[in-house]
């Protein structure tokens, strides 16, 4: 894939994750989503996606402060929640140029 195609794909994967978590919040779920639910969120799309790609997207979003990751003792797994900055980002219709590591920016 070209760099431009990689960026587009990465944004699409991150868009799906953010949309899924934002929808959970809108529905009233505040405890976040576990790995299975995050992965199931990709059923919205027809694209093929690997677990590794999802993990990278989650790490990028967490690094940008749009998601938070917590360890769930009872389930012995991580849970992800969308942060206030993440919700603002979704409401602003995801202005990627502000957060992409490719452009060096961070959310305003």
């Amino acid at each position: 894939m070209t760099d431009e195609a990689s960026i587009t794909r990465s944004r699409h994967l991150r868009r799906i994750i953010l949309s899924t978590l934002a929808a959970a919040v809108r529905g009233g779920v505040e405890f976040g989503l576990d790995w299975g639910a995050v992965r199931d969120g990709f059923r919205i799309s027809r694209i093929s996606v690997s677990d590794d790609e999802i993990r990278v997207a989650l790490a990028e979003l967490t690094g940008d402060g749009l998601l938070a990751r917590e360890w769930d003792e009872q389930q012995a797994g991580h849970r992800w929640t969308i942060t206030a900055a993440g919700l603002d980002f979704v409401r602003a219709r995801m202005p990627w140029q502000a957060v992409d590591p490719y452009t060096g920016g961070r959310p305003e």
Partner: protein
Amino acid sequence: MGRQCHKAYELIAIAAGRQAGLELPELPRAAVLTDTARASLTALVADCPAAREIRDRLYEEFERRLGDPGYTVDLLWEWFCGEYTAISRSAIGRAREAYRAAASRIEQTAAEARAFVALAKEAGADAMFEGGVTRAGQLLFELLYKLKSEDLQAENPADLAKVIRAMGAMWKTGKEAALLDSRLAEVRKTARAAVDAEAAAGKRQYTREDVYRLIDDAMKGKAA
């Protein structure tokens, strides 16, 4: 999203295959083929890594528009006809509706889980047990979302009521968060195993009713 094929997606896949050099018919011709014939062409694309990569990129472009509230059916239709080939407006409308329905699924599921937690608390969960009820809501949410993601039958309020009743009955008799947790973990494991087995077999052996029966059995401690 439902796993059924949408003509718009199939035509995009065929366009990708052509870009990758596969010998496939031109799009206007592909558009008038039978569903079966078109499906066999998209299978060829799926088998070719280079074509698959292009297809996914084109799918991304299409899905960005499907998920963009600024794109009406008319705008999408106009874009698709210009970018690919003439297609009926209703075919584009169906693809858009399916995508948007899938996008709202998690929100609906979350609302159902929240309703369960609220009902259980109203029913008299004491302070000590509140954590257990929230936990039950969490697991219910994950279970329901998994089932819906697997595209079992369309939403049926009676099914949901059945699950909530079963969970409520267990909550009343359980009285201990540890027991509740253990049972719920068992329920989730059983239901997910059933759905996963189905997916692994590549076919639907279980109806939604079957899965709810498994849940009921697990609730009663009969899970294998």
